[in-house]
């Protein structure tokens, strides 16, 4: 078992929280992991990414090789484009929020971004903000995106639930519930999409 995952977004959008949840879930299943993060200046509203690698065997490199990522999980649509070159063209899935984070004046037309994503053979795009709001708070949009990625991660769904309970537990039961619901909503979205594509 080996999954190489690129997490993408803008500083402050919560990609490290996604990484922590996947990491905790992976460790609970006895897997090894390496996770390269971005710290420092680029965290201030700039593009951020994390290379997350989980495997049943020892992992050598902290960085994922180009064209070999099993997944791109992006909490922002334009940011998902930045790592197209990292995705494995034969097996890789891209899961991205459709909600733009516009803090630059030359932000492209959102439809054009989605058109580029939809050219890929394997993708899930979702209105994570809307789905998160329905679960109680737009702040859980990152967890919705994570939920949408779960079917491709090769880990048990319950491992993610346990990870959320562990990580958000000290912040109170309300946050745990909201995030569990967000995870489920994202997960259901992808399952429905996959079911439809089989028909």
């Amino acid at each position, binding site marked *: 078992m080996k999954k190489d995952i690129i997490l993408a977004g803008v500083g402050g959008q919560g990609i490290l929280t996604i990484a922590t949840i996947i990491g905790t879930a992976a460790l609970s299943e006895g897997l*090894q*992991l390496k996770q390269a993060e971005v*710290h420092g200046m680029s*965290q201030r509203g700039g593009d951020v990414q994390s290379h997350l690698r989980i495997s049943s*065997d020892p992992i050598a490199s*902290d960085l994922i090789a180009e064209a070999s990522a099993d997944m791109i999980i992006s909490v922002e649509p334009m940011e998902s484009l930045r790592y*197209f070159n990292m995705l494995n063209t034969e097996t890789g899935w891209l899961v991205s929020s459709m909600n733009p984070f516009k803090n*630059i004046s030359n932000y492209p037309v959102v439809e054009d*971004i989605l058109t580029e994503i939809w050219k890929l053979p394997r993708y899930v795009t979702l209105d994570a903000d809307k789905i998160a709001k329905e679960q109680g708070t737009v702040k859980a949009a990152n967890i919705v995106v994570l939920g949408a990625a779960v079917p491709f991660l090769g880990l048990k769904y319950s491992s993610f639930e346990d990870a959320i309970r562990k990580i958000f537990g000290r912040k109170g039961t309300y946050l745990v519930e909201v995030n569990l619901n967000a995870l489920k909503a994202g997960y259901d979205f992808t399952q429905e999409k996959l079911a439809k594509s089989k028909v």
Partner: protein
Amino acid sequence: MDKLLLLGDEAVAQGAIDAGLSGVYAYPGTPSTEITEYIQASKEAKGRNIVSDWSANEKTAMETAIGMSYAGKKALVCMKHVGLNVAADAFVNSAMTGAHGGLVVVSADDPSMHSSQNEQDSRFYGKFAQIPVLEPSNQQEAYDMTRYAFDLSEKYGTPVMLRLTTRLSHSRAGIIRKEMKEQNKMSLPSDLKQFVLLPAIARKRYNTLLAKQDAFAEEGIQSENNILIDGKDKSMGIIASGIAYNYLLENFPGETIPYPVLKISQYPVSKKVIKSLYDQVESILVLEEGYPIIEEGLRGILDEGKTIKGRMDDTLPMAGELNPRKVRKALGMETPEGYAIPEILEGRPPLLCDGCPHWDSFGALNEALTSYSKGRVLSDIGCYTLSALPPLNSINSCVDMGASITMAIGAAEAGLVPAVAAIGDSTFTHSGMTGLLDAVNKKAPITVLLMDNATTGMTGGQDSAGFGKLENIILGLGVEQEHVRVINPLRRHHDDNVNVFKEELAFEGVSVIIARRECIQTLARRMKQKHAKKETAAS
């Protein structure tokens, strides 16, 4: 023991705690900051009374650590690579004094300049000072080698450098801890003149240092940090140092590497171990993160030996960090192509935060400067360096810590009057104060914008050494009271603030305008903590 999931930086910190550390001395700098922060947050460190508050700059940190080593205890110094430039005087001379208690200097390099102004390679500093350098390739080695570094330091009475690079510093993996060692008791060196580098003593000390070099090289073999791994295909041998070794392994998943590989994680490298590889292969590929220090040595000036491939012959690019793909290409293996990055993608550079006081400080400064020609703002290193970018376009330099004030003096003396220096509170106490003394003594016609956000913001909000002391420092250095102005950088004070700038720009002497408002990030964190406390109290 359970595995701990730690950043490379944190693995160093835990390794140092477990090695019997008594003090960590540092100034924050990406990618080294998390070492000290980990020790500050560690309950074990607290229980052992490990000193861990921030130093004013890397030089004071290094010197304080030398002092702790003199008094027999184990000390760790942490900095980013350019911080070592600041600490260089103390660092290089510490090789001459030698260490008494274990003394380990961590320098975290930033190839590809993710958060830095250059990509200098600290291994050259280690070579320059002629002390051992350790270069871990993964988080477990970072932990183990930190412990080993203290042993080595005390065995040979020498400071030891531990060199990290960004991808190790800021990447997490599981590490296994070993037993915790006792801390040292205070003790002084048997020779109380050991640390007196008067020429007569320094000459002796230098001979002592030179005499240790062969043993240093031999240690790299004994420790198995430099190890030759056999391979059948002798057409090429590979030397891989530090994190480059991982990228090599990555290209042979689940299989043995066909070529002989010399893994290097300790310097100086013994001639013996290099020769044992060199003699059995037709050519050598050198993989190292940073400058080609091994490769250069291997080629020599004449470069007339066997074929050497590396950064110097463009097998690998000279600039930038390595990655699995670059190494794969260097190995002559096929590299798969991913999807093309769509052309509509735009860059997203970092920005000052919404509500950051720097927006208002530079907003007012920009307006006050409209009546002058452009190019007058010499700046410094901090979040405010981002004001170089649109929409502010405020500043014209960023060179090294503290350079704003001194460059402004020089520019003013060349005729650029008024010249402005823009500097943050933490950078000011790091290296700006001495420059301000120069300005006062010269009566230089400069206006200093001192942005006091009460923290070291760019690295995540660490304590600022001059907190609550800035006016006293400035007045003590001799700036005239009526030209020390304090403004509140808020939009509603914009017009008043512009006027203050205009008045001081018109004054042909040293003025300091302190723009004082707390960093929006530390403020938000403080409010959150306060809120959390209230909730706990209520429940």
